[in-house]
Structures are given as C-alpha cells and as structure tokens.
C-alpha cells in the first residue's frame, strides 16, 4: 500500500434509478387506505466501554461518558414503558429497531413487545458498534448474529434493517438481503416504497423511514422544541394523507425511548398520534407489513415502471 492509495469511493449510490414522483403507478393499501402509518421505536443499547473505531468516536468524554450513557440508559429504565403506553392507547404496534444485545441485557422489554405482537427488525448488536471498518465477512457476521439473536428470542427472523448508528458500508444493503432480509430503512431518498437494485437481484424494497421526523434528529441534531416536533408530525401527515388520494403514501415516525418519552416531550407525540389516528383511511401498520404488501402487490409493477421511464435513456450519465 503506497501513501497515495487509490481512492476507490464511488461517485454515487447505485441502489436505485430515477423514478419521478409524478410518473408512478398508483399504490393501493389494504382497505383502501390512503396512507400507511408505522411507528419505529429504536430500542438501543450503548456500551459504557465500547471498542475504539478508527472512523467514529462513540463518546465525547473519556470513560465513563456519563451524560450520553446515562440518558440512553434512562430510555430503557423509564422511557420505554411511557412510550409503550401511548402506542397502546392509539392501537399502534411498534416496529422496533432493535440493538439485538438488548435481548441479553434487558429481556423484560423484549417480552413486553412480544406480548403486543410488535415487529422486531435489526439495528445491529449495539449502537456503539459501527459498520465502519468491518470487512465483508465481519459485516456479514454482525448481521447474522443479530438475525440469530432476534429469531431465537422472538421465534421469527427479522426482515428489516437499519444499520447500527446509521453506519454503513457499500455492501450493507446487499448483505442484509443476502441474509434473508426483504426491506431496508437506510435509504432516505423517497416518500414511497421503492425497489432496490442489489447484486443478488433479489426482490427487495426500501421502506420510507423519515430522518426528518426522527426524534433524535429533531431534538438532538436540530434542537427543535417539543411542540414544534408535534406540529411537524401533524403537518407531514396532512400532506401525505392528501397526496394519498392519488396514490398511497407511507409515513414513518422513528422514535427513541430516551427522547420522546421524557416528561416534557411525550405530550407532543401523544397529541400527534391522537390527531393521526382520528382520521379514517389510515392503515396503522408495521414496516414488515408494508414491505410484505408492497412486494406482493406493487413490486413488479414498480420495477416495470422504473424500466419504462428510464427506457429513453441508456442509463449513462452525461
């Protein structure tokens, strides 16, 4: 390896092709619903003493990083039950983005979610173990470990993936599909499900998982106020619901039990969910059910449409 190793990074992603929002076949949802709503609680475990990673530093302080670790611990000790109660109230089954080590650390939470027939999808092992720096074999092992853990604990293999701490490799989505997955939450390019092009050619779909409405992005990165967060959720719903007259839409509310469930913020989520579930023609569902339904009913039409709208081009970029 010379000091000036070749830069092998790709210029662009090739998971999907252009597909204008106004040139797509109509999406229908079960029962004639206009919109599919899913809530994705991230139930995570962060390590107090994670290994160093060359690409990303887990904590800003030397051991023990009390502020970051302790508020995330709060999420599991306190926040989870508070959020679960609100989701129960509105008849919403969570689609859990799970750090699979939580199965070992806090099985009580897993049992509560199982009782409610919530969906479990994989969010890696720990949110302090990044994809960065792993080779293909290692990343495949991480993915398989999470699948095996979730399958053993819940009796059902997960089919969705959100890479741990949103850390990715060029192969993350391919590896997930090859391990048996059917959908990804790691692409933020669209408001509708979209077919994903993979090296295996397997039917596979991207399900919208809104980073903009993700509570940690909203509260920690964008530092918005709780009531504004609630209003953003309602505004997003209003628009997607209206657009659902023409073609079915998907709305995801990704949450974290250490953010939305704090006493000064829960009301914002609760009011937004009350508002949304007060509407007719809302399919309150899970990520897996959306993926299953889309793959069964819309995937083939969608891929044909993508081929058709790109037929006049040779796929090359000027």
């Amino acid at each position, binding site marked *: 390896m010379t000091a000036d190793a070749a830069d092998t990074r790709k210029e662009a992603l090739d998971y999907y092709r252009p597909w204008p929002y106004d040139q797509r076949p109509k999406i229908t949802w079960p029962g004639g619903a206009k919109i599919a709503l899913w809530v994705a609680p991230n139930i995570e475990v962060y390590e*107090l003493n994670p290994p160093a990673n060359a690409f990303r530093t887990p904590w800003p302080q030397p051991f023990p990083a009390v502020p970051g670790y302790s508020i995330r611990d709060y999420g599991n000790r306190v926040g989870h039950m508070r959020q679960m109660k609100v989701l129960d109230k509105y008849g919403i089954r969570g689609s859990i983005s799970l750090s699979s080590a939580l199965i070992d*650390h806090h099985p009580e939470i897993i049992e509560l979610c199982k009782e409610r027939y919530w969906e479990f999808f994989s969010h890696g092992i720990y949110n302090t173990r990044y994809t960065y*720096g792993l080779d293909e074999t290692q990343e495949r092992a991480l993915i398989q470990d999470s699948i095996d853990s979730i399958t053993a604990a819940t009796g059902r293999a997960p089919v969705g993936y959100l890479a741990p701490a949103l850390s990715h490799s060029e192969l993350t989505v391919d590896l997930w599909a090859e391990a048996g997955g059917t959908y990804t939450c790691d692409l933020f390019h669209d408001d509708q499900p979209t077919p994903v092009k993979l090296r295996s050619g397997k039917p596979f779909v991207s399900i919208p998982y809104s980073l903009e409405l993700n509570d940690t992005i909203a509260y920690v990165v964008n530092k918005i106020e709780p009531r504004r967060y609630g209003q953003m959720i309602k505004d997003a719903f209003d628009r997607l619901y209206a657009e659902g007259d023409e073609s079915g839409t998907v709305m995801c509310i990704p949450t974290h039990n250490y953010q939305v469930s704090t006493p000064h913020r829960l009301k914002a989520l609760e009011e937004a969910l009350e508002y949304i579930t007060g509407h007719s023609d809302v399919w309150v569902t899970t990520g897996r059910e959306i993926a299953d339904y889309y793959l069964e009913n819309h995937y083939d039409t969608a891929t044909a449409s993508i081929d058709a709208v790109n037929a006049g081009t040779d796929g090359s970029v000027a």
Partner: protein
Amino acid sequence: MAWTTPSASGPLDYPNRHYGNDHDRYEWSMLTDRAPLTWPGGETLALFVVVPLQFFPLNPTGKPVKVAGNMTMPYPDLRHYTLRDYGNRVGIHRVLKALDASNVTPTFAVNTRLFEREPLLRELIAGRGNEVMGHSWSMDTAHAGGLEESEERELVQRSLSRLRELTGQPVRGWLSPGKLNSPNTPDLIAAEGIEYFCDWVNDELPYRWNTASGELWSMPLATEISDTFTLVDNLHSEESWADQVCDAADLLLAESREQGGRILTLTLTPWLVGQPHRIKHVERVLQHVSSLDGVWSASGSEIFDAAKAQIACA
C-alpha cells in the same frame, strides 16, 4: 470499587453482553417494576429544585476537560467571568424572590471556592436555612477521566471539608460540574460522606449504587429540561422552556396518581434565568407547579430520605 466492564478484543467481541447493564455499579430496574412511593402528607409529586451557585475562575486550566460555561475568550475574559458573576450578585436575588413567592424550597449546589470568596452570599444562603449540596471546588475542577485518583481524592476532601466548615451543614448531596464523572468519582464522594449524587440522568427516582465504601444513591436531576440545556444548548425561547416544564409537571403529576410518587426536577441557574428578560418565565413555571394539587416541594435530602426509607425497606 473497579468497574467490571472489560474491553472488547475486537469489533465482534462482546464481553459485556449479559443480563443487566454492561457494568456492575447499579442494578438494572425498570421504573414501573418498583413498589409505588408516597410522599409526606399524601402528596404524589415531589418538586426538587436545584440552584447552582458557581464560580468560574478567570484563569481556568480546562483540565482534565473544560466544563460548559467556562471562559472562551483570550485572557482576561471579562465577558464570561462577569456574566457568570452576575448570577451571584443580581440573578440569585431574583431567583430567590421567585422561589419564595411560590413557597418553593431550593437546594443549593455550591462550588466551595465561591463560598470562600463571597461571605455575603454565604450568609444570605445560611440565613435561609436551605440545604447545601457539594458542587466541587469550582467550575474548573471537572471530575472526569484523566484526573488522577489521588488528585481527585484531595479535591473531593478539600471541597467537602471546607464547605462543611463554611456552612455548618453535613452536606449529604453532590452534583459534579457538568455532571461529569471520572471512574472514581462515586467511590470518592461516598468515602467522604456523600449519601446521594445527581450526576446520572438515567432514572426518575433514587436508586442505590455499589461503591467501595459508604452508601451512595443516585438522585434524579434531569438535564433535558434544565435551563442551561434548553436555553443555552438548544437555543429555545424562554417561553418554550416554561411550556416544557409545565408539560413535564402535568405529565408526572398524572403518572404519579396512577403509579406512585414521582419527582419533578428543575435546575435554575442564577446567571442564566436570573436575567431580567428571563425571570418572569421562572415565575410562571413556579406558580404553575406550586398551584397543582399533590405537589410536595422539598429539599434534596428530604426527598432522598423519604424515598430511601421506602425503597430500602421494600
């Protein structure tokens, strides 16, 4: 005691993947799995208000780490030095007046060096009879990784012994600057007679720690609703901060009626909310909370004792 949280040998090695937390300093426990608490007089929501009284030296070392709020400009940073000092001269009086108007009990977290330097402020606080908690020596003495154990032991001993001399109080509670800890902080403060500390924001009720010596409990003191986090870190408006506190009070009160005693924790920093344009929002918050039916305003030690007596016997 040492932390039992061995280091991983590689990216796919998980040596702490087992039941409970990945260390052994406290027991894993969900809030809703605990026996319900009651507060004196049958109230259900305790109100724990911490007023930090802080000294930010003009010549900070920033070691082992720099705590938020310290000097940022080239020496001498008159701007931040005096703005922090403002809280101890002017802001504190507005905050005390607001607290007293709503009959809310404060607990003061005091940098010992401040009480050495400011006898008039010390006498003002002493005259009120409120509880004083340890808050280390100054805002430039971070208890964080990188601080030698022997140095930290001396720092804890000096901070607490001098504060006890200056106040005549036992000083049972502790708040580390910036809520930072070194690996040794809990053991060292417990060894010096601290019974509860407010650095870990992982719970909403007191819970017991495992320490090398002495009995130590964690007391909740939320960061996410504190004035500095909301107004300084998040740049929310004062009105929004007040709304957030009121929403928190309403939620916790409702929950406490169903699930047993809860604690609304509030940090009121005089150099920040003691400003003339902010104090009315503090007044609104305190009026709202104290007007609720079922609220018990008490000191840290009173809340700690009431909780500990019930939890320890459970």
